[in-house]
């Protein structure tokens, strides 16, 4: 039988039993829609994390103390004190691929204004930090190099801190003095709000002071917990890492073949780590959704087996008038593929619709094209795979018995 005839026969058969076809298609629709939605959520959150991270500066580089081996024992990075003032100065002086650099010393604790208090982190930085992390000052101004030199007790605060201490996030607090770990800091500026990042951290619950102040007056230490830098461009991040690594190895007198006692990471790498985590989560979700497709496939096989039995007489008749086994098996295969493909098309549509609604509501969702193509292929395969057993059963019928079947 020619392909067009097969298609016509399949359409007639499907149309003659609409409600049953619809019900068996429903499984595929739900399965495909679930897969599409899961992929959309995965892709959407990945994209949102990426854009979040690039808002923080896509050319950001961070040096941390670490990877230090002493006698085979790896040291706890926080206990390491390898990043010193020298390193900061030599990067500033020698690194050509670095545009901004800021040492970082952090301290957490209680901050008090009048009768109110809150817990926040104090970041000791250089004024260049504003450019590295793309912070903007809403009110007042940033502390300057003079403040750094004098270890001045000044700070700039994030919106959350303002709200907690003054009761109103728009309160004009520039010039007010707050106390952090019993040391008074004068507020010189308020940061423009950044909001929560995509992994739920409040980026505005922050205070920034000159690094010298935090080192001497709060942490009482001579080393940095990290050094934050901007590379000239995102593309040259890797070159910048090499350059900085070379400078630090020289400073730390590390011989060839010895491991670094620090690590330089780019935002790129952090993004990749985040992405791969997201991918894993997405994969788990998609696999779970794919199981519903498997169940739907079994449903189709079941309904096709019923259909083959129901139409035994028809099969017998077709064989008597000249249908070969393969004509019969093709007829049923095409029918099951059509059922599952129709389900696939509706499922993709439904998946798109739900993803669109979700993105309107505010959930990051984006349907990747390859997921759509994959869904169609999977549907066709399901039709073929689960249609095979019923089709074979039909093809192997004995026309003598089939034609007299009651």
């Amino acid at each position: 039988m020619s392909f067009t005839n097969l298609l016509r026969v399949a359409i007639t058969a499907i149309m003659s039993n609409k409600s049953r076809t619809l019900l068996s298609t429903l499984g595929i629709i739900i399965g495909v829609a679930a897969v599409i939605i899961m992929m959309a959520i995965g892709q959407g959150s990945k994209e949102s994390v990426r854009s979040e991270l690039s808002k923080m500066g896509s050319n950001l580089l961070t040096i941390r103390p670490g990877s230090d081996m002493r006698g085979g024992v790896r040291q706890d990075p926080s206990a390491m004190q390898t990043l010193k003032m020298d390193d900061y100065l030599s990067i500033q002086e020698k690194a050509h691929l670095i545009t901004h650099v800021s040492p970082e010393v952090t301290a957490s604790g209680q901050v008090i204004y009048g009768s109110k208090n809150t817990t926040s982190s104090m970041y000791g930085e250089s004024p260049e930090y504003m450019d590295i992390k793309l912070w903007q000052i809403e009110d007042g101004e940033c502390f300057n190099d003079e403040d750094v030199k004098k270890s001045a007790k000044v700070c700039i605060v994030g919106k959350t801190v303002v709200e907690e201490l003054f009761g109103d996030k728009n309160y004009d607090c520039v010039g007010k003095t707050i106390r952090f770990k019993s040391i008074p800091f004068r507020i010189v500026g308020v940061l423009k709000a950044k909001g929560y990042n995509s992994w739920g951290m409040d980026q505005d619950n922050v205070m920034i002071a000159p690094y010298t102040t935090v080192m001497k007056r709060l942490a009482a230490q001579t080393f940095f917990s990290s050094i934050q830098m901007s590379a000239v461009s995102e593309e040259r991040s890797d070159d910048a890492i090499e350059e900085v690594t070379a400078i630090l190895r020289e400073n730390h007198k590390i011989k060839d073949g010895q491991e670094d006692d620090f690590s330089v990471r780019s935002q790129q790498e952090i993004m990749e780590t985040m992405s791969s985590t997201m991918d894993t989560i997405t994969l788990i979700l998609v696999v779970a959704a794919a199981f519903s497709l498997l169940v739907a496939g079994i449903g189709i096989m079941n309904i096709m087996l019923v259909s083959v039995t129901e139409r035994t007489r028809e099969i017998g008749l077709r064989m008597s008038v000249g249908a070969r086994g393969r004509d019969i098996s093709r007829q049923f295969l095409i029918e099951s593929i059509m059922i599952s493909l129709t389900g696939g098309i509706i499922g993709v549509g439904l998946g798109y619709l739900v993803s669109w609604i979700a993105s309107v509501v505010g959930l990051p969702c984006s349907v990747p094209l390859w997921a759509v193509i994959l869904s169609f292929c999977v549907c066709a395969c399901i039709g073929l795979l689960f249609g095979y057993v019923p089709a074979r059963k039909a093809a192997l019928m004995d026309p003598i018995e089939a034609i007299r079947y009651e």
Partner: protein
Amino acid sequence: MSEFKQNTNVDAQGRKCVIELQNVKRDFIVGSETVHALRGVSFKIYEGEFVTIMGTSGSGKSTLLNQLGCLDTPTSGEYYLDGIPVKNMKRSQRARLRNRKIGFVFQNYNLLAKTTAVENVELPLMYNNNYNAKERRRAAIEALEAVGLGDRLMHKSNQMSGGQMQRVAIARALVNNPAVLLADEATGNLDTRTSFEMLVLFQKLHAEGRTIIFVTHNPEIAQYSSRNIMLRDGKIREDVLNENILSAAEALAALPKPQDE
């Protein structure tokens, strides 16, 4: 047809031999026993004959019908359909042979449900790639006109009476212009009047030169055919030519008219 290997064979009057059985035996193994359904059947049927095959149930007539219809193959012996040896043919080859050479008419019509008359008649040609959609439709319409249903082309199978359905089935059997028309109790489900109408149709087809084999257990039908083969216990008991063929049309006219006409 040149696509099959042929072994043509002609009788004294120059008629082609359409069917030739040479000592056909068919055994079935049921459990540990062997049932001999056909115990050596031989006969020839020539073009243009209207043969009734009769026998009680268990006489082997269904088995013989399956052999003649190429739905089954002999355990031993040989069967030539239109000169083509069938015994060693594969399933798919026999399907093709049925498609080209045989027209089946069944007791219970076996029309496709919710399908129009013309689509039902087209069915055998769907499995013949030599026909395109247009030729198929034309052949189906011609066949329906030949059985007197030219005005019922688009009626669906569930909108027709038993007689009309059987006419559609006969048209379906004729559409591929078969070498032989095989009717299996074709009047079994019909009332007397409609049965005679069917016989009128079969006699008309016979007159037009069709070869017809009519399998039945009803001895009355034999009077309207040109030859009668009687089976018993898997063997031919009687094979006689009918010298005095009755006219089904006259018998139909003699029937009392139905009340509602």
